[in-house]
């Protein structure tokens, strides 16, 4: 087992290297760079642009270097001293900007994952065991709504609801009065009060998808001979179902760890913008638009790393859960 983990971690290194290369390449693909987009903005607003200054900036930022030199400089900085480069737009080191955002992204991801699990598990089991009952149809109906309605619309609806009927300040993860305040019990309470909207919205489609998957898997498992064996032993019905078929149908739940993180970053960027969440999505989006390449590249690299870790975790958990995987 330890050898397996070691091997997996070892495999992650070339994968990460490839990902960093590809992400850097993609960021470089659109014509121009940060300076051209800055010049365009400046001339739009009627400011004079000094060609000499542009030359000087170009030299500082190394825009004249060939692609691979720029890449190597950047990656060497990360590996040797944890320096992810400089954000042009924010005029700050990238690492300072990134960690706060990654932290909130992780918190929201994990909480959404928990939400998805807690809601999808009982509903999925109920739907499979009482297939075609009224309850199953109701859940199926809401499940399809969860899948079909775009997240940002759901976000707008919930924000309106929270503001109009609960009198909450909406958007972000803190009310304005706590935004700059140090952490206290009251701030935590305020944080939690804000948290439910993004978690429900981000979790909605995942929950719906997982309910469908669990329902389908469990329906297949429920009529397997080993379930009849368990019943013939004299086990009570709830134990028959929870201990045997559910255990086996649970694999997609664990696999969800692997996909929830990339989904959260790439899939719900619009939602995060609508909700004004301090997560990675909106910042990454802005960095891409303004061609703030080191910021965007670093984000993509870190997210890839997190995704790989998520995949590893879900694979390890799967092996723990299912001996058939462990032994092969």
């Amino acid at each position: 087992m330890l050898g397996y983990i070691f091997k997996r971690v070892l495999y992650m290194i070339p994968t990460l290297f490839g990902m960093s290369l590809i992400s850097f390449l993609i960021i470089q693909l659109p014509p121009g760079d940060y300076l051209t987009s800055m010049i365009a903005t400046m001339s739009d607003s009627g400011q004079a642009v000094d060609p000499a200054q542009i030359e000087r900036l170009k030299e500082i930022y190394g825009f004249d270097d060939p692609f691979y030199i720029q890449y190597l400089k950047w990656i060497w900085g990360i590996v040797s001293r944890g320096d992810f480069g400089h954000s042009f737009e924010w005029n700050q080191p990238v690492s300072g900007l990134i960690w706060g955002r990654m932290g909130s992204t992780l918190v929201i991801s994990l909480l959404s994952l928990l939400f998805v699990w807690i809601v999808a598990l009982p509903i999925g089991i109920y739907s499979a065991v009482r297939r075609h009952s009224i309850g199953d149809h109701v859940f199926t109906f809401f499940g399809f709504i969860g899948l079909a309605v775009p997240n940002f619309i759901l976000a707008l609806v919930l924000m309106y609801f929270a503001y109009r009927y609960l009198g909450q300040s909406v958007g972000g993860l803190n009310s304005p009065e706590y935004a700059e305040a140090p952490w206290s019990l009251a701030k935590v309470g305020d944080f939690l009060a804000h948290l439910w909207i993004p978690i429900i919205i981000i979790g909605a489609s995942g929950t719906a998808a997982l309910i469908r998957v669990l329902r389908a898997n469990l329906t297949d498992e429920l009529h397997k001979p080993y379930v009849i064996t368990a019943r013939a032993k004299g086990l009570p019905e709830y134990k028959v179902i929870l201990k045997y078929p559910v255990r086996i149908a649970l694999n997609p739940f664990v696999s969800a760890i692997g996909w929830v993180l990339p989904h959260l970053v790439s899939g719900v960027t619009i939602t995060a913008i609508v909700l004004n969440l301090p997560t990675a999505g909106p910042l990454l989006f802005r960095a891409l638009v303004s061609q703030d390449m080191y910021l965007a590249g670093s984000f993509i690299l870190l997210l890839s790393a997190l995704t790989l870790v998520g995949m590893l975790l879900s694979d390890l958990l799967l092996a723990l859960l299912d001996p058939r995987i462990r032994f092969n």
Partner: protein
Amino acid sequence: MTDPAEDVVLSVENLSIDFRLRTHILHAVENVSFELKRGQTLCLVGESGSGKSVTARSLLQIVDRPGSIVGGRILLRTGGEFTDIARLDPDGQAMRAIRGRRIGLIFQEPMSSLSPVHTIGSQIIEAVRLHSDLDKRAARAKTVELLRQVEIPNPDQMADRYTFEFSGGMRQRAMIAMALAGNPDILIADEPTTALDVTTQGEILDLIKRLQVERGMAMLLITHDMGIVAEVADDVAVMRFGRIVERGPVDAIYHDAQHPYTRQLLASTVKLTRHVEGRVPAVAASSQPLQPILSVRNLGKTFGWHGKTNSLRAVDDANFDLYPGENLGIVGESGSGKTTLGRLILRTVEPTTGSVIYRDKIGGEVEVTSLTKKELRGFHREVRLVFQDPFASLNPRMTVKDVIGDPLIVNGLAKGKALEERVAELMRLVGLDPMGMERYPHAFSGGQRQRIGIARALALDPRIIIADEATSALDVSIRSQILDLLLDIKKRLNLSFIFISHDISVVRYFCDRVAVMHRGKIVELGEAEQICTAPQEAYTKSLISAVPNPDPRDKRMLHRHRFVAPVS
């Protein structure tokens, strides 16, 4: 109604079970009555769909929805009292106390009837603790003891293993241990050996019988195999279409059957215990020495890297000849390499070593192992394959005409009206009505589908047909029909057959010569009658003696040869 006799533990009276389907009500079981007596075995025999499994499950009230008991009583003796199981709530405490504690259940698929993600031990311990107040340690000790009783070696270590680390026979032993965990006085065994090899089957039946006698249990054994019935039954009930058509002591059923269905069932079983009548082997019949149509020399297949310890010699140095008009049988247990051998000849699996020489229509010799892809297609036109599973081997989205005509279209041999005529001709040849040409496979029964598969194999006028377990999935009465059909077609079209099977009786009936395979090697090759009546090799002897004999007056399995494989 009077109470049943003293030694009756369970008495089923006029039991009826209905399945409420969307369009109609299916009477799966109607008015079934039987009794289980202490220390005695009742065999419930019938072909697929006769309702025998549903009857067994109803005794535990675990019939799947939408099935439900609609009439009759199931009386279980508890001391001097009788409990009517049919009246109990399926989810209630009283019913659960009977499951496992009073009635144990073993059933068919040893592969899937145990949970793959829990250890064998934990599943048995659970059953032990459910019906006693033993603590974990004592329950484990009892589990190990149970595993010892079912003859699992190293029971203490094996308890911590998972099912997929067990062989089929071992799993079935574990399943039996679990069924015995609650010390039941009734054991239901639903086709307990159907998925097992014949020698393993013999051992498992021995074991069940021994445990039954030791514990004085009443047993209900459900099977489709009249041979097994003759070996183990005290009483027999024959089921057909949800009704018991005949019931009586085993000797009376076998030697004085009253009902025509019982007689038919027995006749088709007995028919398969000897070679087909009135036929001289093709090789002996011809006056001049024949050239073999197919010669296999030193054929071998190694999976995995050569020479490594984990490499597997699936087929090891196989040699045989197939003569024109001959039926050559290849028998062996699962994993013996018989299926791989068939595939090597067709080169759907590439051989590692050896040669296959095919003598074509004009007498030229073709080395199959060195054919190019294109030449191989020509070879495949003349050597066809018939598959085992008549349900999986036909594309459900193609009509019968498409299925049978497909080889003709692929090879560009016929289309339009000509194709239709050829398909009709083929269907008549295999005994199907050409009117059914436009229908889909699901409209046909298992036997009819196998006929479709045979028609497809015949479409290109082949010279050799390789039939891989072609009758294994069929009921015994259908099985002999299909075999007779193949014999008839063979005579008319002058075909040669390579007939791969695990079923010795089928091979004995159908084949002129038989090759016996064991662990990738052909251990014995000879005339079918000689192999089946006077086998020479130790392995063949054990294989033949493990085949149940459908005559209760001559129980063969009780004094069978045991073959201990030499350590390789």
